């Protein structure tokens, strides 16, 4: 039987070390909503979302209460909307109506975000894909809950550079349209390479076409718990360090597994995957950079950071896969700058640069995340940064993503304030030299040689 020490350890993780379940995300397929009439399509989309997820928030709150574990977000992801609207949307404005329907459904249900305003264009953009992409700035400035993502490359297909160029422009336009709020629209827009179909985390969640009709994914968190555990073994060798991270990741993931099973059972929706990611929040002590410091770095970004992060990421996966049979999504350490107090401090101290962050993305999940750059950064430079990050994902057969915020009207030395879980971000300098001739080339970068495995 469980003993008092084990009970106290679990409760201490929640009460003092910020252990939480970051999200229960209900993935909903909208493929069966397609219609030749736009109004009818909108109606069917609304009905499907609110009927499948009607109990999501209530059940989430019940589980929270039963186990005394905070479940920070209840979210919805849907089939990439470019596909849902393909047969009927004839302009970006047509797609905007679908975004507003998603927003309305999210408001009705009381969820925190709805993801899937997305297009998958890793090998090329169809006309309807381009309509959706061109509608993104308007959507992100006129909706509250909608998150958008575009997959522009993969190891199997190469990188669609036309989409990369277009996304640079769309990020700038989104920033312009939301400049009164420090260009916050860009915080809800992700550009992916090798995007997973079952990611529960925003802003990049969508319900992939390979998924069943409805499914429950759970994302856990817990950087604070890992840091605390490492404090107990300060100065030990690498074996002890790795063992400690693994054991902690196991415990954290088991909580996610329990919550996922319970949510699935109570909602009568099949369980999909657990995403093992260490997701930081701006709260003190809930920082991935804090773990890197505990491993032995003065600041995140110091020499040794990439190695320390690689080690951390790998041990989290090793502990996590033992705890759940179905692990998926992004599953690794997140390194968003604005959402992590330790990362913010590292940038302010001059220890962490955009280039070092790019190196770090080679060894952990996701990519350049929640990074504020000067408002004067050109669309071409943004596309160049996206292309670099996509290339890392394509060559290394991993997911990479870019969520950059060119903060209109602000420059290096100033700070953007997003509030809540999105945090605040010091503006980071971008390499000032041009890449226009490269970005203006038409077409795509071919798939790498190691993708030909057949």
């Amino acid at each position, binding site marked *: 039987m469980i003993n*008092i020490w084990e009970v106290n350890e679990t409760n201490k993780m929640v009460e003092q070390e910020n252990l939480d379940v970051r999200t229960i995300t209900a993935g909903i397929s909208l493929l069966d909503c397609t219609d030749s009439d736009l109004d009818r399509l909108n109606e069917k989309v609304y009905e499907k979302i609110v009927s499948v997820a009607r109990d999501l928030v209530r059940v989430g709150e019940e589980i929270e209460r039963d186990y005394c574990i905070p479940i920070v977000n209840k979210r919805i992801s849907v089939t990439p909307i470019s596909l849902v609207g393909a047969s009927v949307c004839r302009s970006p404005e047509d797609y905007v109506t679908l975004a507003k329907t998603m927003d309305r459904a999210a408001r009705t249900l009381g969820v925190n975000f709805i993801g899937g305003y997305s297009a998958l264009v890793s090998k090329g953009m169809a006309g309807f894909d381009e309509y959706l992409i061109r509608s993104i700035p308007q959507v992100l400035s006129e909706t509250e809950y909608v998150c958008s993502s575009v997959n522009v490359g993969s190891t199997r297909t190469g990188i669609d550079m036309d989409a990369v160029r277009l996304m640079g422009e769309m990020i700038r336009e989104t920033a312009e349209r939301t400049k009164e709020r420090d260009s916050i629209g860009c915080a809800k827009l992700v550009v992916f390479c090798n995007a997973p179909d079952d990611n529960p985390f925003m802003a990049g969640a969508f319900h992939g076409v390979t998924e069943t009709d409805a499914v429950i994914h759970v994302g856990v968190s817990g950087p604070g718990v890992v840091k605390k555990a490492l404090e107990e073994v300060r100065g030990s060798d690498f074996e002890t360090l790795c063992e400690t991270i693994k054991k902690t990741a196991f415990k954290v993931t088991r909580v996610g597994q329990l919550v996922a099973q319970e949510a699935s059972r109570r909602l009568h929706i099949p369980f999909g995957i657990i995403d093992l990611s260490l997701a930081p929040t701006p709260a003190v002590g809930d920082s991935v950079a804090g773990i890197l410091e505990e491993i032995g770095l003065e600041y995140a970004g110091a020499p040794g950071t990439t190695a320390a992060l690689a080690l951390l990421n790998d041990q989290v996966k090793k502990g996590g896969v033992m705890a759940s049979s179905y692990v998926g999504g992004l599953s690794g350490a997140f390194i968003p700058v604005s959402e992590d107090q330790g990362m913010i401090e590292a940038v302010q101290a001059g220890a962490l640069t955009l280039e070092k962050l790019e190196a770090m993305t080679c060894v952990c999940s996701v990519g350049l995340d929640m990074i504020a750059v000067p408002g004067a950064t050109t669309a071409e430079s943004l596309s160049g940064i996206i292309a670099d990050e996509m290339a890392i994902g394509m060559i290394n057969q991993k997911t990479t993503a870019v969520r950059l915020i060119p903060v209109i009207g602000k420059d290096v030395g100033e700070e953007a304030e997003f509030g809540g879980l999105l945090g605040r971000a010091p503006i980071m300098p971008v390499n000032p030299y041009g890449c226009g001739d490269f970005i203006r080339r038409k077409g795509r970068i071919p798939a790498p040689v190691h993708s030909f495995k057949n």
Partner: protein
Amino acid sequence: MEKQKAVITVVGKDTVGIIAAICAFLAEHGINILDISQTIVQDYFNMMMIVDLERADLPFARCQEELSVIGQKIGVDVKCQREEIFEKMHRI
């Protein structure tokens, strides 16, 4: 109710009658105590009970609320959680 076991934890400044107050409530509502352990660390009272709610005459959520109210009256923090979270975390 399908799953019946819950863990009650009590943490706070030690005072007379903490266990009595909790146990009186449990007995009144048909909740059976399966295991109980207690320590005092630096004057702080720390208790854990594993209880069976199979024959409880009130729903789990009410039980949580009422225990919490009893705790407030005595000046301690009383928590009631379903047991699986501990089982899952600490047992393979």
